[in-house]
């Protein structure tokens, strides 16, 4: 559908949140949690933090949580009786105040989880989620969205996008059918935008630092250059921080927790950075050293994903770099790959 453009007053945001709350939506938005900002359920607008650059974790937890029950079972004398968990049993959700990179991240997850066999746990939650993203008026040195096809005002993956155009006003872009339905809940708060309102002048300046096509080509052709990958990965400590805060990382583990009578099967986040990620039962580990695992991370996002789906598996949010205890800084590494 063609996007519609409207104006909303900042002062009306509390009302907007209230409308969704009273319609029974679960509203998730950035809130302060100690020293970090996290996406958590909110009851009112007052709890929401809109001036943080980014939340520490990505928004993927809305449809791909860190722990999720996927099966329940009883262990009876006659055998194990399974009780499937209903993927539809999730509420209508509003994801509010996230960044364009967060919304973009869902595109990768949609391709992965939508691939055959389709993952209903993710898809149903995603279906029931409306995303209102806020365009970025600032950025920091870790951001590189513009180098991977995104941008501070990019609308991919968003149902609506709000851009601050003055201290009192937000430009509202209604982008999808779902967005239109959501906008109907607060249509009375919207006014027409004057022609020529250009959001780009309010957006952060994020300089392009590499040509992503270059990264894809060079990464693919450098697969066997073990020195190159070793150089990049020596300081990596092999934790899962980057994978877990990343909006596009989708690897998961399945764990059963049970007693002698019944149990549950849980889906949990996993990371290719862990040394045991590819450990076979035989004891053989095809990715025995961290340089192989680091290479895999880059290749997956910048070679295998573009090959199998439509784009790179990275939205340039820089969360991995900010969270990394060893300062692996993916923007730096990608720039050096492109410069090879």
């Amino acid at each position, binding site marked *: 559908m063609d996007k519609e453009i409207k104006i909303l007053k900042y002062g009306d945001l509390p009302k907007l949140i209230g409308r969704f709350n009273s319609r029974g939506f679960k509203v998730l938005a950035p809130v302060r949690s100690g020293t970090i900002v996290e996406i958590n359920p909110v009851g009112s607008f007052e709890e929401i933090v809109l001036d943080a650059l980014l939340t520490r974790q990505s928004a993927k937890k809305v449809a791909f949580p860190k*722990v999720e*029950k996927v099966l329940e079972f009883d262990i009876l004398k006659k055998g194990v009786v399974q009780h499937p968990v209903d993927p539809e049993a999730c509420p209508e959700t509003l994801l509010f105040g996230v960044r364009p990179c967060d919304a973009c991240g869902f595109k990768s997850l949609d391709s992965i989880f939508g691939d055959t066999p389709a993952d209903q746990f993710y898809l149903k939650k995603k279906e029931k989620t409306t995303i209102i993203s806020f365009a970025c008026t600032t950025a920091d040195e870790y951001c590189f969205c513009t180098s991977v096809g995104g941008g501070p005002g990019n609308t991919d993956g968003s149902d609506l996008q709000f851009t601050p155009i003055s201290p009192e006003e937000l430009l509202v872009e209604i982008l999808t059918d779902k967005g239109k339905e959501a906008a109907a809940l607060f249509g009375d708060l919207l006014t027409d935008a004057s022609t020529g309102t250009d959001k780009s002048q309010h957006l952060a300046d994020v300089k392009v630092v590499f040509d992503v096509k270059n990264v894809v080509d060079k990464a693919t052709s450098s697969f066997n250059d073990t020195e190159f990958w070793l150089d990049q990965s020596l300081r990596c400590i092999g934790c899962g921080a980057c994978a877990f805060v990343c909006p596009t990382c989708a690897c998961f583990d399945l764990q059963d*927790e*049970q*007693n*002698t*009578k*019944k*149990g*549950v099967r*849980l889906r949990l986040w996993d990371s290719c950075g862990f040394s045991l990620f590819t450990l076979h039962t035989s004891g053989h580990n095809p990715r025995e050293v961290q340089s192989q695992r680091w290479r895999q991370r880059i290749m997956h996002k910048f070679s295998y994903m573009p090959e199998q789906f439509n784009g790179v598996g990275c939205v340039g949010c820089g969360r991995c770099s900010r969270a990394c205890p060893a300062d692996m800084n993916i923007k730096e590494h990608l720039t050096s790959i492109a410069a090879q």
Partner: protein
Amino acid sequence: MQEFEPKIVAFVCNWCTYAGADLTGTSRIKYAANVKIIRFPCTGRIDFMILMKAFENGADGIIVSGCHPNDCHYSSGNFHARRRWIVFRNLLNFAGIETERIQFSWVSAAEGLKWADVVNNTVKKIKELGPNENYKKASVSAEVNEEGASHE
């Protein structure tokens, strides 16, 4: 309303406390039936993770008991255990887990009466503390165990 009957797990060493508990029985001393006894070769073998597992699986209280210092069947097992418990208790307390829910004791093979006292006093104490709710509601698996237990 039914009175709360705590579930207590006792981890005891084979040579002293287990034998002592046996003596309690043969002496026909009555004591609270809330305790499930698990026999170990030595208290030195009792890993703190086993205690955590007991709580996770629904125990309201735990008893850990073995030979008196200098009387360990394996000479020094209980000395190692003692050090471990000193550290573990400190950690549990700091993490906000009630250390009163774990009762440590030295009960020898001749102390049938003492075993009964340890059990009875522990049951009384745990009854006062109430069910171990915090642990029980902490996880998905706790939900599993609550319902699983009722099948018995």
